[in-house]
């Protein structure tokens, strides 16, 4: 199969960008989307052009490095997978495919398809942890944790921090990301002592970074490669409400 790619190229944040069209060579439908970009980049390099910059690392859907908006959807057409787990099988021979970066004000463009997501690190630094010093922990069995709570916490903890939720949201809201972390800790006994302080600090930092408000359209849940549930946003809102009442 072959496809036509319309790729966003932009030197840096200060230079205007544009779409550039590339006709791919013959491709194998078992190739991943990123392997296709590798092939195109090899070709560009040989033609003396600069290859397309894009983010990736693990290529198995766990590190959260890959991004890309493919035909208008963060992480492409398939539900519940990241761009690196998108295979050409999901496209047809001759398709024209639009490839853009994750666009959101708090994610400044770096180059071509690469954006900066350090805002997430700053939100985590504001409170996304349990304050426990190394070596001071009690025996792991000292506090039993109901299986349901552990499983639910794991559902939330599965977030890979890719930012697709922000990229798809018309308000560039980071609520799904933040609520996943807040809920993971909020569901576990170990997270209780700092529960309200944590949510207040993280939400405050989220606002400071310029992420928008949540209007519960659910588009974030729909594109999340780990299918993080909107329920966590509701959960976080409740915790945040309590935090405000308590003046945390």
């Amino acid at each position: 199969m072959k496809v036509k790619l319309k790729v966003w190229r932009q030197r840096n944040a200060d230079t205007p960008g544009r779409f550039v069209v590339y006709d791919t060579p013959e491709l194998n439908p078992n190739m991943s989307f990123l392997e296709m970009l590798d092939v195109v980049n090899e070709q560009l390099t040989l033609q003396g052009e600069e290859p397309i910059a894009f983010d990736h690392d693990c290529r198995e859907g766990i590190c959260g490095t890959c991004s890309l908006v493919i035909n208008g959807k963060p992480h492409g057409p398939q539900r519940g997978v990241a761009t690196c787990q998108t295979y050409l099988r999901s496209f047809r021979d001759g398709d024209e495919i639009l490839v853009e970066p994750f666009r959101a004000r708090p994610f400044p463009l770096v180059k071509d398809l690469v954006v900066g997501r350090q805002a997430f690190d700053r939100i985590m630094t504001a409170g996304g942890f349990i304050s426990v010093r190394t070596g001071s922990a009690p025996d792991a069995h000292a506090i039993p944790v109901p299986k349901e709570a552990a499983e639910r916490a794991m559902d939330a903890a599965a977030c890979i921090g890719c930012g697709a939720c922000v990229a798809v949201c018309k308000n560039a809201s980071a609520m799904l990301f933040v609520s996943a972390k807040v809920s993971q800790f909020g569901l576990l006994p170990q997270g209780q002592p700092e529960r309200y302080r944590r949510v207040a600090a993280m939400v405050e930092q989220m606002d400071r970074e310029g992420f928008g408000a949540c209007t519960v359209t659910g588009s974030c849940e729909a594109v999340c490669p780990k299918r993080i549930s909107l329920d966590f946003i509701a959960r976080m809102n409740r915790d945040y409400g309590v935090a405000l009442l308590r003046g945390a």
Partner: protein
Amino acid sequence: MAKLESHIPAGPLAQKWSRHLFESKLVNPANKRKYEVIVVGAGLAGASASATLGELGYRVKTFVYHDSPRRAHSIAAQGGINAAKNYQNDGDSVHRLFYDTIKGGDFRAREANVYRLAEVSAQIIDQCVAQGVPFAREYGGLLDNRSFGGAQVSRTFYARGQTGQQLLLGAYAALCKELAAGSVESFSHTEMLDLVVVDGHAKGVIVRNLLTGEIVRHAADAVVLATGGYGNVFNLSTYARQSNATAIWRAYKRGACFANPCYTQIHPTCIPVSGDYQSKLTLMSESLRNDGRIWVPKDPADRRKDPHAIPESARDYYLERKYPSFGNLAPRDISSRAAKQVCDEGRGVGESGLGVYLDFADAIQRLGVEKVRERYGNLFDIYHEITNEDAYRVPMRIFPAMHYTMGGLWVDYNLMSNLPGLFVLGEANFSDHGANRLGASALMQGLADGYFVLPGTISTYLATVKPDQRPPTTHPAFAEAEEQVRQQIRRLLACRGRRTVQSFHKELGRLLWDHCGMARNEAGLKQALERIPALREEYAQNVNVPGSDQDLNQSLERAGRVADYFELAELLCRDALERRESCGGHFREEFQYPDGEARRDDEHFAHVAAWEYQGPDRPPLRNVEPLVYAEVKMATRSYK
């Protein structure tokens, strides 16, 4: 010649670590703030070390080439982490974990290090649970365990198929806590390109900001490398694409010894290669071997048949046949080699003939589809995504792939290299796994090194240096190192040849896989040692690196790393050639028993080979650290 003093404390094995901690020099709290420590890497080892050193009061700078510390390769570990908790009451103990690890490593690791690893393993789990790591639990609320290759007890803790992710996010959260406290400063998108050595001590690094191209000098009282393994020298591997050897390689070229480079691990259960475009190989967690049965047809003529059409009697469950007591749970090196053997015999399955079946039909019958889905659902999903096949209905096809490196920079018991002030943690060092690593032990080692070992040992070094004598970045050693870095970048960009970096990397990887992969022999290694320098020469003349050094340039990043792979590949082959025995992941065809099992040579090779760089024009020196076994008896490693 480098001085290789292991500094293993005296006394009985079980008391060495606690005694050592007691006897270590301490730095008083008010002085700790004056010490600066550079940590390169924020995988399990680097993030846990940075966080803990920060807690202790040191001033820490942490560097990663990733856009965030949370993205390190550790995130991809699936199966689990070992710890001698004996929560299952199945006879586990510190001593058993120690013994399994020593034996698993084919008696090529230091007793004292491995014992310490087993000893601190239990604390790791306590620490992680307290951090909110959502490990799998039983209905009673206690932690669940599974068993893993090379062990007959259930001591592996896990968080679904995402254990590495959860442990890393735990360590990253600990790091965030210290970032918030101001004790740690984090530099993302920043790649270390050289180590600065002043008067024989590691005193700083040269880094490049990958977004702006800016090259910056950083000085410190000690430098910690926690930069992961070097398996991507093979190009195709289960590593993340960006994982690379540059940090340890450049440290090697500054005088740090590189130990046992030929101890590389090939993982038996990966998805087979499907085409030339392939960029990486995907691991199917070893935990699948708990319930899946591995087989190939007995008759090569059956290899293209629908597997359902091959009756039980015509199948060869070769691991169960050859290793009845461990069966499908035989260690990785043994399972990988057995797979290679049956494929060499023409019995491999799939398009290329390079594959074996991992079959769940029996497990599904015994446990029901739901139970199998609960245990392995996400792995079956990954398999489906990649191959478009449904493993609930047809057996998976798997094949060995490059996965982990036991070799790495040489360190003493304190995790300090032969260069004073340079500490090496996690997969980047050579310390604990001997010639083969057991499943679920890398995560254990990374966190042991970072949370517990380094924080206990670094003070002994720091107490000997005065923070007000830290060399400034204007010292000539910094200027010289910076100039080297700049020169290399200029050379790569100026070359404008006709081949891409990737095409060279592919060719090198293929060469290594063929001659220094699952089975090695003298003729093949010699051939590789002739071809690698020629290819390296062509690389220098004919590589094409587009773009500039003033902004994000992924081709340039890659080009520097591949340049290092060429040199490392040569050392790997050299080490494999010199080690005239088979042990663990290093299998020399000349040294095997008639039944094809590895033949170790304890008389001549019960030692660590630590290579010392001698400059570009002279071959490296092979230093030797003898391995002394006082507690365990070196035995032929049998899993039969």
